[in-house]
């Protein structure tokens, strides 16, 4: 039997104090970042450099690219970090100086982080690549993340808004399908009115998702208006084209005979149920991002797709994101190696395939099977989807976007609910928003 000495209270306190002190010191110590690991890489050649790749989603198809990358670059270990609450955590990471080496962020966020020196200018890296062909990218996408000659990212895939329509509902109403080559706001309204039968809860168009105010951006573009000036220093909500566009759609929304009005949509599932309503034969057309294709195919009805209706010009939103290198990265060269690999023709295709989007590189969109094409037993004009990248635009990215969107969103909500006319409130809102976005 071993003799165990009794621990005195003093010994216990001393021990406890030491442990608590050590724990507190350990908690206060700076978090060992992957960059720290890499700084020791020089000492041991066998240790790979670790690159953190931050994005809002798990990455899907990126894992295919990652597997190939690991084989080709065994000395670079890329770790994908899925960051929840992206809009809040990315600024917090930036404030702490612990942004991942490569960050995939959305439109305005990419520009704002770049403007505030959180991302480096990747143009020198692009220029240093012998075989890099910028013209392979769709022009709007390639030019978007550039301000004052600095490039704050490289795009990957894009999801354009187009018009999906229920061919069966058009047939039942005896209405001609939208013309692929010429589809205007007037055509849209005429066809929607002809299909609508509100008494039986059938409408020609889906409603406008009032809370999703960026939906209105494309309507303004189609009327040759803009939310902001090209340099994002001025709000153009007070311009006639913008006011006219928003009021036109608001009037159709409130009419109740083109699309479900805010009160009508309440009883049939809300604005979020548009794809289900399209599939159920309750609405004839839905202007939405190409990501809904999968759910339409699953629903098993006959649909087709045309471009968004145009007014002064053809335009649409193309959603997507940009990959950029954090200024705090200790391994910028390795970060570029991964970024460039991931946004190569094959890298973009891998991600786009999983997401059913087209890529922002034309060469990616030439690889078969095409990601945006679904297997159905009726004819669909699938080409409409990638074609939208030729004329569509990316959501605007002014400084202080969050606050400006709140002001614009509140104003749009008033117009779409019929509380105010666009012409009455937009001039005031525009001047207020200008103050916000100009305050860099």
């Amino acid at each position: 039997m071993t003799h165990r000495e009794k621990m005195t209270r003093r010994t216990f306190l001393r021990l406890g104090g030491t442990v608590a002190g050590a724990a507190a010191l350990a908690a206060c110590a700076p978090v060992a970042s992957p960059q720290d690991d890499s700084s020791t890489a020089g000492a041991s050649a066998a240790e790979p450099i670790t690159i953190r790749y931050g994005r809002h989603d798990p990455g899907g198809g990126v894992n295919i690219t990652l597997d190939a990358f690991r084989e080709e670059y065994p000395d670079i270990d890329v770790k994908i970090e899925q960051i929840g609450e992206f809009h809040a955590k990315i600024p917090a990471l930036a404030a702490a100086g612990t942004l991942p080496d490569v960050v995939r962020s959305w439109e305005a966020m990419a520009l704002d982080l770049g403007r505030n020196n959180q991302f480096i200018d990747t143009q020198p890296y692009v220029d240093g690549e012998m075989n890099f062909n910028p013209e392979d990218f769709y022009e709007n996408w390639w030019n978007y993340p550039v301000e004052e000659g600095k490039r704050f990212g490289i795009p990957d895939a894009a999801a354009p808004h187009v018009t999906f329509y229920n061919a069966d509902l058009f047939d039942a109403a005896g209405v001609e399908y939208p013309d692929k080559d010429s589809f205007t706001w007037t055509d849209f309204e005429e066809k929607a009115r002809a299909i609508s039968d509100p008494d039986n809860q059938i409408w020609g168009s889906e409603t406008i998702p009032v809370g999703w105010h960026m939906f209105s951006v494309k309507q303004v573009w189609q009327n040759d208006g803009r939310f902001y000036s090209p340099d994002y220093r001025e709000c153009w909500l007070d311009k006639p084209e913008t006011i006219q566009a928003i009021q036109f759609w608001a009037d159709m929304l409130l009419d109740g005979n083109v699309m479900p009005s805010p009160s009508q949509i309440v009883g049939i599932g809300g604005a979020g149920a548009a794809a289900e309503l399209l599939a159920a034969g309750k609405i004839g057309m839905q202007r939405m991002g190409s990501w809904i294709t999968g759910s339409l195919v699953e629903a098993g009805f006959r649909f087709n797709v045309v471009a968004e209706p145009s007014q002064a010009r053809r335009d649409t939103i193309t959603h997507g994101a940009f990959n950029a290198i954090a200024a705090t990265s200790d391994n910028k060269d390795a970060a570029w190696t991964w970024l460039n690999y991931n946004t190569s023709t094959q890298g973009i295709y891998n991600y786009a395939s999983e997401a059913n989007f087209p890529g922002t590189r034309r060469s990616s969109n030439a690889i078969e099977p095409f990601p945006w094409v679904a297997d159905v037993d009726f004819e669909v004009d699938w080409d409409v989807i990638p074609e939208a990248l030729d004329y569509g635009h990316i959501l605007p990215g002014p400084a202080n976007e969050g606050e400006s969107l709140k002001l614009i969103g509140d104003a749009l909500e008033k117009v779409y609910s019929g509380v105010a006319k666009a012409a009455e409130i937009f001039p005031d809102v525009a001047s207020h928003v200008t103050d916000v976005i100009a305050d860099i």
Partner: protein
Amino acid sequence: MNTTGFTVHNTIWRSRRLRDALVAYAFILPWIIGFVLFVGGPIVASFGLSFFRWKMIAPPRFYGLTHYINMFTSDELFRISIWVTFKFVLISVPIGQILALGLALLLNQRVVMLGFWRSVFYLPAVVSGVAGSIIWVWMYHNELGIVNNGLQLIGLEGRNWLFDRPMVLGALVVKSLWNIGIPMVIYLAALQGLPQQLYEAADIDGAGEGAKFFAITLPMLSPAIFFNVVMGIITSVQTFAEPYVMTGGGPDNATLFLGLHLYQSAFHFLKMGYASAMAWIMFLIIFGLTAFQFRLASRWVYYEGDAR
């Protein structure tokens, strides 16, 4: 005891006291560290930040009192959020206290399954604000919600409660009443501590139930009422989870509470300095309301043993 003996005794006593104090501090040290790092530190930092413009993604810039001035001169949303919060406090606190007291009076009776009923009414108080809010989103659902379906059963038409501007704040007030379990338990404890001889004396004097309630129960409960009202106002001013989860501040900013506007300013608009200033204004509002209640308390709160 001679002088030397007294000195030795005094020294031992002092060293024992010192040791006891050190032991006590050693035990509360983890809490003190946590408080300084996660509560005290951020409080001090937020006060400093309120004088800076800080977007998180750029270094802070000194801004002086600009945030405080802008808040009262140019931020329409701040004015709206103050008004929304004020209305909510004004409606929810009195109703909540009356219901909590009523429930406590009922649960202070000898009824069947008393323990069960007490647990049932207290249970929602242990559910987190977010989880409770999600439950209420479903309860208020236009088509599937128990509220509208219940109304339909008695021949009334339901509403789209959370999207209907005139109704939405009322809907959140009703949700807040779900948490009356906490004040109810305090009232219940206070009721059980009321001296029975006062009621016996009142019975001898021929007092009715109403007279006993207003002349004995309410005055004797006044310290509990005071405590619950103070706490109720503080938590109501700080309301955040419900509008964040259930309405996002809408429709048309009808539920843009001060706490939600503060959060949006910080994490959506990245105006950390401004949000910090707003937090200090919120603190001053709460402090002012609490101080006001303490001032009024001497007129209506009765403490047993106090000279009146």
